[in-house]
């Protein structure tokens, strides 16, 4: 569990008052800068407050900011969402990152935090700009959003923030993690293919996804093969060493033939096009399912991953850390996983149904 949170007995302004031998309302005036008190007293109280470690409580500050707007420079807890490969193009296509960001925003607002998005993929952003945007004096928490293994390394003084990562389990820093449960995703895909009558089931996973999830897809496949007593079809990794597309197509076609596959489950959203390019045109030749659908698609069977929910849970986890004033990287770091939902589709009919 996060080891930073167990001595959260806060220093209050009453303790500052005791140490300074003044009434606590005087401390309030001195520290808020709002009351009329001699400058020397103010300075003395400020010094004492600093010595005994008084820090204003961000939750109370944000509460008073909400209830008394326009009164002073109080602010709501601020969360920065570092998003991977952001572009207006991806936004328009409804890419994963937008759903994550929507979920984060929804929950952050519900929990009274403000949210800023920082696109790491933008060419204008460099390390200095990230540091400036995440200025610890006005940033309470950071969500590292689904950064993939090809992204540049992030160098921040993590000890100054509460930190939650979305997916990105493989990368530093080690922090509280919220992710899609890709082991469950792969497992329920196999279970549903089995329910539909398939026995020779192959899984083709992007090398990048496999690495980013620390082998969760493979784990789901192995455990499903084992529990359903399926033939040991090896997993095919796509995009290895950035091979060219014709090579991939050839490898997939060979793999399907060698193992006489009835259905291919893949992390590639374009799995149907891939099979078509292998010369296998539709459910009559071979069935397929996608392991990372964003929406129900009647044409394409597969597993919907709930990115919006993942975003929500990440914001909740971060608000919890901020609330319990746990800064820095949590050790040991817990990981929260959200499961996916299987969806039938034309691309995977009941096995044998097409032949009658």
């Amino acid at each position, binding site marked *: 569990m996060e080891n930073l949170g167990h001595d*959260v007995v806060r220093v209050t302004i009453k303790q500052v008052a005791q140490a300074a031998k003044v009434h606590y309302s005087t401390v309030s005036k001195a520290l808020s800068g709002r009351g009329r008190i001699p400058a020397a007293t103010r300075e003395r109280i400020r010094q004492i407050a600093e010595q005994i470690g008084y820090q204003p409580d961000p939750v109370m500050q944000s*509460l008073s900011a909400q209830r008394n707007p326009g009164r002073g420079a109080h602010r709501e807890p601020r969360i920065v969402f570092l998003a991977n490969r952001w572009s207006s193009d991806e936004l328009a296509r409804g890419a994963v990152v937008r759903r994550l960001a929507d979920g984060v925003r929804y929950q952050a607002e519900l929990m*009274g935090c403000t949210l800023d998005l920082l696109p790491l993929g933008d060419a204008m952003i460099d390390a200095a700009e990230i540091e400036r945007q995440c200025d610890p004096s006005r940033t309470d928490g950071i969500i590292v959003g689904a950064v993939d293994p090809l992204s540049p390394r992030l160098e921040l003084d993590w000890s100054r923030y509460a930190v939650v990562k979305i997916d990105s389990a493989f990368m530093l820093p080690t922090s509280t993690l919220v992710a899609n449960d890709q082991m469950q995703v792969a497992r329920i895909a196999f279970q549903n293919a089995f329910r539909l009558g398939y026995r020779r089931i192959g899984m083709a996973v992007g090398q990048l996804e496999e690495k980013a999830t620390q082998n969760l897809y*493979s*784990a789901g496949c192995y455990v499903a093969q084992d529990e359903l007593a399926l033939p040991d079809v090896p997993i095919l990794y796509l995009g290895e060493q950035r091979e060219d597309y014709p090579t991939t197509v050839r490898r997939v076609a060979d793999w399907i033939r060698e193992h006489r596959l009835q259905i291919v489950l893949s992390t590639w959203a374009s799995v149907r096009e891939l099979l078509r390019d292998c010369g296998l045109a539709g459910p009559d030749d071979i069935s397929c399912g996608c392991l990372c659908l964003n929406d129900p698609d009647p044409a394409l069977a597969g597993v919907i991953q709930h990115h919006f929910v993942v975003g929500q849970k990440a914001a909740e986890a971060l*608000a919890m850390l901020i609330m319990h004033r746990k800064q820095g990287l949590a050790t040991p*770091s*817990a990981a929260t996983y*959200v499961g996916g939902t299987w969806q039938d589709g034309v691309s995977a009919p009941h096995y044998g149904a097409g032949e009658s």
Partner: protein
Amino acid sequence: MSCDGNEHRRVTMSDVALAANVHKSTVSLALRNQSKLSAATRERIRRIAEQIGYRPDPMLGLFNLRRRLLAPPRPAGGIAFVSDLPNAAAFARSERHERIFSSAREEAKRLNFTMELFLVGPAQLSPARLSQVLLARGITGILLGALSPGTRSLNIDWSRFCVVGIESTQVEPRVDNVSTNYFQAARLAYKALVDDGRRNVGFVIAHDLGTEIDSQLRAGYLVEIHAQTPSRTAPFCRFDPDEGGFEHLRQWIKSEDFDAVVGCGVDLSRVSAQIQPEVAKSLTWASIDIHRAQTGCLCIPPLHRELGRRAVELLVTRLQINLRGVPANPDTTLFPVEWQDAKG
């Protein structure tokens, strides 16, 4: 929220009071499910609050929690720790349950909640009776305290409660759970042994861990086996001491020619004592412990205290924003384990 009079005015308790034609203190009592009011009144006011879109102010909830951390006034609420062990003596004997419970209670106390143990089962409370008792006493938080694999559902109206499970993912409908990361534990044990020069590592899994923990352990083992030697099929053995388990295990160890064996939820000292000494000695024994806190061999100790603490933290956060019922997309929070050498 009183900050602006225009489009974003929050629905407050006063609005609910007006609509329900009661005083706002009555609304407050009803929404906190206090037994001072009749169940019917509580229900009526809750329905009206829902209709007109009342939601507790999350920032006020956080504020109240922070206040409680500073200066504990009266208890903020009660949490029921639900177990399905047959009786109090069995509960006290189970190190796993006892440790989860005591750490959860400590954390509850820190957050100024009270926690009580409730036993459900044939000789104890029925789940229906339990929910009556909890509602009557105004307890809205429930922890499912490591329920047995055989308990697959509880007849409770979840919409009335905030609930978090501790290693109880088998219970339907699924609720948010906290659990040890058994997948990572199996990978860690395997890797540690291979790094230490073992070539052939077998896994013995207790037969009564339940399908969830069992498949997490197997998944971790299978991923590592495939990474090492892709061609090998992975053997593991389920161990049931009452069903000729020792003999089965002896045969298995002999036939597979292991140089290391990892026990998951298995008392290895009993196992190695039953095996020919020269075989037992030639093997490295390691344990992923699930029930107890220590063993004599290489070991991954369980995380009972972390689980209890985290479950309460999560439950209290949810209670603050009055988030009741079963989630549409349940999640599981997994805690990573650490490898411990024999001396530890």
